[in-house]
């Protein structure tokens, strides 16, 4: 039933309306230009935190709108970043004079649209900045690294900081620290494909795609004979060595399915990760397992580690009330 999601335009609009109808106490949706804002009132002087993203990665970004996280979010077409017109509408809704922070995954479209929006906002006298999320160690050149699970973490950290009264500078700084302390990698498990086009080749039953992107960007096809532990041994060293993470580091572990991964398999993946965390003497202080950054209905998962300190831990634990995160 690929066609359900493929109706250009209207599927996004209806899905957006669906999300708002499912969470009427938390979010409010606007159309044309499309954006979503929180219903919870803002403390005065609060910095606005906004994120835009192509659709198909739900709950990101709309599911992160609400108290303690995003003030507003904009969904683009499938896998295509939203326009400055949408982003400016979100700015006008969320800005209360203390400035705006955009959380942007490092893809050309997201960065370019945000930079253009920031120029427009500055012309209107609104102080606007962005933090670039680039946690994907599958890309060797740091400048080209894509944004993965750290986008979820950055939205939470920035939102908690803003909610608790951090200034724009301070919110930018702590969010940049959160991203700088995070590393991720993705694994595709079923179809080596661009979901939109139904193209692509089925992976063999014993094969994965290592370092896959969340828009069908291909990874490296590897045959895996030993099951999950072998997969985790392929992604963990690049993650751990890059920061690097060291024994006794306190970490936050985020495991996200890509939308087509059975929960059974996600917990299988988690088990192998936890075993290695213990072997590396990493202290998993907090964890989140579920669908937090998806790629339409493809099979696969991403793993993200963030090195924690007391400030980041406090901001992570701060109350949040959104469709996707709630505590």
């Amino acid at each position, binding site marked *: 039933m690929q066609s359900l999601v493929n109706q*250009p335009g209207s599927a996004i609009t209806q899905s957006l309306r669906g999300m708002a109808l499912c969470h009427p106490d938390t979010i409010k949706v606007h159309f044309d*230009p499309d954006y979503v804002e929180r219903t919870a009132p803002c403390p005065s002087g609060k910095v606005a935190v906004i994120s835009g993203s*192509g659709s198909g990665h739900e709950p990101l970004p709309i599911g992160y709108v609400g108290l303690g996280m995003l003030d507003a979010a904009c969904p*683009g*077409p*499938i*896998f*295509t*970043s*939203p*326009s*400055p*017109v*949408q982003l400016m509408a979100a700015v006008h809704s969320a800005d209360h004079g203390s400035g705006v922070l955009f959380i942007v995954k490092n*893809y*050309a*479209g997201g960065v*370019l*649209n945000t*930079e*253009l929006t920031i120029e427009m906002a500055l012309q209107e006298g609104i102080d606007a900045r962005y933090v670039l999320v680039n946690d994907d160690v599958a*890309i060797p050149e740091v400048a*080209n690294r*894509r944004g993965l699970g750290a986008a979820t973490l950055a939205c939470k950290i920035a939102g908690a900081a803003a909610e608790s009264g951090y200034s724009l500078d301070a919110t930018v700084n702590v969010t940049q620290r959160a991203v700088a302390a995070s590393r991720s990698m993705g694994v595709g498990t079923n179809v080596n494909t*661009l979901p*939109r*086009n139904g*193209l692509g080749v089925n992976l063999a039953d014993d094969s994965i795609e290592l370092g896959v*992107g969340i*828009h*069908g*960007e*291909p990874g490296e096809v590897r045959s895996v004979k030993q099951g999950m532990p072998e997969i985790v041994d392929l992604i963990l060293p690049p993650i751990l060595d890059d920061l690097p993470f060291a024994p006794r580091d306190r970490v936050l572990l985020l495991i996200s399915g890509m939308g087509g991964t059975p929960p059974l398999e996600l917990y299988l993946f988690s088990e192998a990760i936890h075993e290695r965390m213990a072997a590396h003497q990493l202290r998993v202080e907090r964890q989140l397992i579920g669908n937090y950054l998806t790629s339409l209905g493809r099979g696969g998962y991403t793993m993200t580690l963030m090195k924690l300190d007391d400030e980041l831990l406090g901001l992570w634990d701060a109350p949040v009330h959104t469709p996707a995160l709630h505590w």
Partner: protein
Amino acid sequence: MGQEITTSQLRKWLLAYAARIIENEAHLTKLDTAIGDADHGVNMRRGMSKLKERLKEEKQSEDVSSFLRSVAMTLISGIGGAAGPLYGTFFLRAATSPTNGSSIDLVQLTQMFRYGLDGLQQRGKAQADDKTMIDTMQPAVEAMEAALAAHQSPAVILAAARQAAHLGMKHTIEIEARKGRASYLGPHSIGHQDPGATSAYFLFETAAEVFTKTGAG
């Protein structure tokens, strides 16, 4: 250099451009499927549909700058992805180039392209040979400037731009991507023509067709 291009002729050019892109939607998406995320045709078609809507309202003696600015805003809101802000910035910046009010001459047309190219390049920070639309636009604008300096006729100037754009577009087949999604493929991006370089080529192709026909002579 007495030829004047009016806002209404710019409108004709962009209508021809929109039609050319819409004809080539599948082709552009196919190119983006090989080395990107399979949406460049979809993105450009979405932008061009909005542009056609916008171009329907023909305002009396509209001035070139505000016309180009409104084209820019339409593309910015309509295309999306990476191409949206890039084409949008091209026209936003083109709108700041010198005009005679509601028309431009060929010198000013060349300046308009130069302003647009520089703006796009500042926005995207791509260099020549990064395998992007820059590889089409930069040689095309340079060819226009050279032909202008050599006092060529309008038809020759526009033909030079189109030819250089075509060579630039084809050159992207041979090089490795260093910007945009195709860069994730590294050397595997070689052998494929860049989708954005292709959509950018049509700007120069339709300019040559429309301005040579309507304006020359």
